[in-house]
């Protein structure tokens, strides 16, 4: 269709991507992707991790240059050579990984996103105005490093809004928020579109998209799949578009027996290091053989400290962690592994695997303490190779070449590899932090099924995850972590999304709010 109608009644697109293509080496991140955003609408960009959403956004704001295709702004071709140029044309972006400066105050952070030499005190007043108008709570003079993730996101949004954008791009905004915080973000988004601004809302959470968005563009594998009206779709029809097939659900094995306690955590308290990450306060937890316990919570509430205390990276009081009846709190990771515990940290590259080492060497990183592979300090290559092949075959790890560097693998395949590496050791306890973060749906389902099977064979499994749906789907009991405290685990059947959401916000099950305080 020719776009010749000027000032016609049909809503014109404000910002439009036409057939954008971007390659990174052999990978085609975006393959002739088109998207148009109209004034006054909330437009969803849907896709799995790795579908090319972030690449598209980066091209739309000048952080990346497309290899081919063009951008139209109010119907006219435009090139954004850098992010500053897109901002001056009214395109504001709130990135998934915040572009914030921890050591600086909120006002300084905001000032860095605005042109001109406005005095900080005047800017602080403008921040207060903006905060009032859009119902965002932000204190201008606090240091960003001290803020929670939700507060940081609001700083980003305020910074964008003070530039008076016509298009606001929100990259996975709710992935770091509690359900409550998400609700207040939705209200802000509705207010913004009612003012005639356009919002591009990037997400893979289907319910949100159906509630909030007027139109949705779906990407899969770097390609444009469809533009739909999300309100006319069901969650499963959207999921089909996103994944390209039915999403397999993890079979829930209801009948299995609980055995001996495999992990006991008693009064585990860890002092915070002051700068980053919450401390742990009096954590108590028991996991029996055959059960999967999930720990829900927004990132940065002490999950990392808990994982390190369990894995032995941060040893403490011997009695605080008991693995299979042995007090292990004072032991390091290798000794704990010798007790047949397995650990899969959150960060795949750099923590679970050494990025520039071949996969077979990465196998050795956690199996060096096991008999058979290392004898008298010498690596025996044929058992190592057998073990490596066992992981690759048993866990469907796909890669090019014979033994590539860990960083060459896709997120899903590397995650299957690091989980397989632990599972093949036949552990009695396995602790996994974010098992399916950034993993495609098929691999995620495979990982959940694998963990489920281990539990059925008598392994105790602890899963730390920010994905509440995942936890509700395949764990037996769920505890919630908030500000370094852990609620007692509750059987999944006896809890609800709302109760968990409240606990994530630090309510700890004292649900009754709203009544006046009787002191």
């Amino acid at each position: 269709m020719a776009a010749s109608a000027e000032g016609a009644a049909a809503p014109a697109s404000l910002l439009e991507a036409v057939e954008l293509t971007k390659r990174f080496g052999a990978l085609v991140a975006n393959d002739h992707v088109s998207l148009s955003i109209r004034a006054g609408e909330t437009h969803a960009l849907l896709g799995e991790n790795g579908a090319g959403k972030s690449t598209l956004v980066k091209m739309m704001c000048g952080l990346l240059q497309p290899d081919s295709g063009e951008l139209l702004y109010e119907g006219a071709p435009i090139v954004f050579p850098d992010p500053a140029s897109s901002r001056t044309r009214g395109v504001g972006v709130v990135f998934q990984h915040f572009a914030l400066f921890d050591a600086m105050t909120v006002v300084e952070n905001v000032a860095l996103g605005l042109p001109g030499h406005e005095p900080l005190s005047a800017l602080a007043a403008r921040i207060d105005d903006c905060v009032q108008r859009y119902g965002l709570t932000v204190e201008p003079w606090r240091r960003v490093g001290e803020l929670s993730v939700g507060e940081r996101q609001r700083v980003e949004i305020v910074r964008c809004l003070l530039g008076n954008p016509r298009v606001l791009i929100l990259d996975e905004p709710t992935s770091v928020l509690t359900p409550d915080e998400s609700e207040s973000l939705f209200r802000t988004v509705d207010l913004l579109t009612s003012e005639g601004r356009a919002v591009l809302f990037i997400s893979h959470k289907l319910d949100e998209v159906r509630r909030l968005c007027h139109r949705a563009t779906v990407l899969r594998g770097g390609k444009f799949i469809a533009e739909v009206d999300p309100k006319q779709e069901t969650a499963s029809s959207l999921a089909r578009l996103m994944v390209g097939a039915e999403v397999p659900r993890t079979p829930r094995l209801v009948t299995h027996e609980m055995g001996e306690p495999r992990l006991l955590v008693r009064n585990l308290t860890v002092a915070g290091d002051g700068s980053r990450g919450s401390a742990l306060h009096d954590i108590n937890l028991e996991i029996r053989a055959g059960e999967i316990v999930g720990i829900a919570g927004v990132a940065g509430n002490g999950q990392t400290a808990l994982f390190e205390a369990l894995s032995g990276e941060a040893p403490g009081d011997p009695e605080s962690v008991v693995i299979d009846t042995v007090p292990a709190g004072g032991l390091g990771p290798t000794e704990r592994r010798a007790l047949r515990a397995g650990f899969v940290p959150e960060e795949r590259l750099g923590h679970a695997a050494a990025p520039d080492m071949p996969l077979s060497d990465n196998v050795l990183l956690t199996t060096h303490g096991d008999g058979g592979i290392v004898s008298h300090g010498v690596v025996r290559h044929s058992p190592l190779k057998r073990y490596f092949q066992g992981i690759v075959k048993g866990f469907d790890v796909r890669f090019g070449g014979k033994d590539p560097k860990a960083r060459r693998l896709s997120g899903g395949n590397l995650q299957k590899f690091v989980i397989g590496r632990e599972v093949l050791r036949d552990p009695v306890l396995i602790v996994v932090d974010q098992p399916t973060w950034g993993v495609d749906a098929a691999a995620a389902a495979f990982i959940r099924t694998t963990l489920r099977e281990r539990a059925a064979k008598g392994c105790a499994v602890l899963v730390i995850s920010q994905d509440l749906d995942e936890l509700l789907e395949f764990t037996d009991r769920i505890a919630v972590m908030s500000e370094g405290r852990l609620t007692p685990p509750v059987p999944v059947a006896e809890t609800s999304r709302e109760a968990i959401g409240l606990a994530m916000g630090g309510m700890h099950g004292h649900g009754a709010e709203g009544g006046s305080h009787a002191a």
Partner: protein
Amino acid sequence: MLDAAILGAVLASVVAAATTLLLASLGELVAERAGTLNLGVEGMMIVGAAVGYATAYSTGSLLLGTLAAILAGTALSLVFAGLAVWLATNQVASGLATTILGLGLAGLIGSSFVGTRIDAAPALRVPGLTDLPVVGPVLFGQDAFVYASILLLIAVAYGLARTRAGLVLRAVGENHAAAHALGHPVRRIRTLAVMFGGACAGLAGAHLSLAYTPFWAADMTAGRGWIALALVVFSAWRPLWLLAGAYLFGAVSILQLHVQGFGLGIPSQLLSSLPYLATIAALVVISALKRGQGAPASLGVPFVPDR
């Protein structure tokens, strides 16, 4: 007993010793706050000293000598910036290479000036005030380098804390990816910061060869560039603590000379190491007190924008 004249002279020499360090470390502080660890300070300082001396000796003008020193330090810093900022090489290796290059160049430039002397930069006198006992020579009888270093300190402290340029520079050093995403030209800002560092190191070199010890000798910087680097780290990247560190170092290095003069039987090597020990001790205490306000988060990390 020390009389007022001797005390004044001693204190004045403390100021002079501290000034070289203050000038060089101020420049390095700015470069590091922008996220570049420039280990080439020593090299840029000695090139500044050599070029400054050669120019001043040949033209007879201290001002021309000083300007030439600043230009020479800046030019060498551009070599470092080209490598570390634009080619994203390892900053430590590039900085060390710059220092070695600088030492070699300075030896070459200065070789024909060995054994010559010039008149030191004159003290600026304020009639009446300079003749006051003790405070006169210390506060009002210094050369232009000393006053320049103090003005520069004020400018840097104010500029970093209060101006938009300073804010952007700190942002680049704190999180270069975020600064880039907000549209700030990370590599241009880092280049300018490194150039400022080079200019300051060149000026520090000029102070050495034109005022503090007005002759040329190979290796005359004697590790002062490294001390300046250490001062930046131990001052927790704060200009005012840098001032304290530089003057403490200057004071102890002058005083230990006088102690050696008394002949107390303490090995001179031990006394010579005192300034280093005292500086480290004092600055460790400072940085312990200022915990949590550590290095710029992107310090030493090369920045490569994706395209």
